[in-house]
């Protein structure tokens, strides 16, 4: 039995950053950082980028070196899966039956890669890429694979496809929707990315659904489409989102469903239990107050800051502009804001030049930008999103005029309360 002032469950970006932020705020209490993986806390985004490509070693993915956690007296508990929460007794229980007491609990478990619900989904050589172990297993099987099928045209699928076609594989990407990034972005960015991937040799199958994964000698050998067609595969990668890992909290009575609900200070409905990161459903100021989950490093880090400040007694509501990045081939994609709910999307720059931005507006205000090799637009567009001022859509598409001038011509009058 052991007890801590703060128990953080989940040692990914959000959990690690919570411990870091608490110590930066000179929090003196005891901290446990519990993770179900066997690694030190590490960055996940490179798993489908530089790490998969073999350009970065795992050590360079570590959020902090091993010595850091000792120095800051953060007790790491790797390889420990929490299966139950008792909010009355203020204890969590691990899969091995051991129990840990807390004064405050921070739930930062993220989610598990969503599995396909179809025959063959659990076969060997069917991979998701959520953890280092996933990525290492995938990498170990790559040399023997020629044909790779990627299921899912979100960022994970697109990034993996880019790396693998770059490694000389025959890559087919299957997406159920009519365009890639259907959950994230508008069609202008999607059509551009589709053309890029095709030009690099990726076969895209859009509007295509999977019936099941076929087996040969106990391992995947192809993907059977609902049309009946078989796409042969030596390896299958599934990138169809995550399932928030919140079952123990919900079982303990926390309000939620697809994630656990939190308020502006990241508090769940359970006393002294917080939730942050991918698994936290929150009202987001940049989604017009809609309750959403955000799966991003930005959200993980900023919510970690919110909960750390709340714990040390300088609470400040969560308010942070969402941002996101992706790298595919030589493309630098930078997104700021949330495009969902836009009533107008305009193009700034030219797609053929491979440097442009898609600007999303709602009621005359910029709510998001997808910037491709257009960092200046990203930096300046961020200020438009933050300010919430009305802009003239004819001015913001004129590349002769810096985006920031749309703000200056309107005067800086914040619409949203900070």
């Amino acid at each position: 039995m052991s007890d801590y002032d703060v128990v953080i469950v989940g040692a990914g970006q959000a959990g690690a950053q919570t411990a870091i932020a608490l110590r930066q705020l000179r929090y003196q209490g005891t901290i446990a950082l519990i993770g179900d993986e066997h690694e030190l806390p590490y960055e996940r985004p490179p798993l489908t980028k530089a790490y998969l490509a073999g350009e970065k070693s795992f050590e360079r993915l570590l959020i902090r070196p091993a010595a850091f956690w000792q120095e800051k007296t953060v007790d790491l508990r790797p390889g420990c899966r929490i299966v139950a929460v008792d909010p009355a007794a203020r204890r969590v229980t691990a899969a091995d039956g051991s129990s840990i007491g807390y004064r405050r609990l921070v739930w930062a478990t993220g989610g598990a890669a969503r599995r396909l619900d179809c025959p063959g989904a659990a076969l060997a050589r069917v991979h998701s890429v959520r953890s280092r172990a996933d990525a290492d297993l995938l990498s170990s099987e790559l040399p023997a694979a020629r044909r790779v099928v990627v299921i899912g045209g979100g960022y994970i699928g697109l990034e993996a496809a880019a790396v693998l076609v770059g490694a000389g594989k025959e890559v087919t990407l299957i997406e159920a929707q009519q365009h890639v990034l259907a959950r994230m972005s508008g069609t202008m960015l999607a059509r551009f990315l589709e053309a890029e991937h095709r030009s690099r040799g990726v076969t895209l199958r859009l509007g295509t659904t999977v019936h099941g994964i076929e087996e040969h000698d106990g391992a995947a050998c192809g993907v059977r489409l609902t049309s009946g067609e078989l796409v042969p595969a030596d390896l299958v990668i599934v990138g169809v989102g995550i399932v928030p890992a919140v079952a123990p909290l919900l079982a303990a009575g926390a309000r939620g469903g697809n994630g656990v609900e939190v308020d502006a200070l990241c508090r769940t409905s359970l006393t002294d239990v917080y939730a942050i990161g991918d698994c936290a459903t929150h009202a987001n100021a940049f989604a017009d107050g809609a309750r959403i989950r955000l799966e991003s490093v930005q959200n993980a880090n900023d919510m970690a800051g919110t909960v750390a400040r709340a714990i040390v007694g300088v609470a400040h509501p969560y308010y942070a502009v969402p941002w996101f990045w992706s790298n595919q081939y030589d493309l630098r994609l930078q997104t700021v804001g949330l495009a969902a709910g836009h009533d107008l999307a305009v193009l700034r720059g030219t797609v053929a030049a491979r440097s442009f931005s898609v600007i999303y507006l709602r009621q005359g205000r910029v709510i998001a930008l997808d910037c491709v090799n257009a960092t200046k637009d990203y930096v300046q567009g961020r200020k438009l999103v933050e300010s919430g001022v009305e802009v003239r859509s004819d001015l913001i598409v004129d590349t002769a005029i810096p985006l920031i001038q749309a703000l200056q011509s309107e005067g800086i009058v914040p619409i949203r309360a900070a």
Partner: protein
Amino acid sequence: MASLIVTTRDGATRPLPADAGLSVMEVIRDNGIDELLAACGGSLSCATCHVIVDPAQALTLPPPSEAERELLDGLDHVAPTSRLGCQIAFDERLDGLRVTIAPES
């Protein structure tokens, strides 16, 4: 081993052992200095590893890329020799490089 000389936000200056092949951001992080968020892990996507290079040494570095300059332009406290730590690849030739961690934005 080569060293990187870092001034932290409290004004203290100290040399850090620096492995060639790492970025200045990674050298600072791996030596336990906890002042850079480095949110994007060094992929030139955020600008949370802002350092200011000693002006006397700035010209010894390869100049910043256009994307780096554009990210720097969006920062508060930007100085003429501001750089993103993730974009300075450390090697033996940079032994003794002096950088100051920029104030928090």
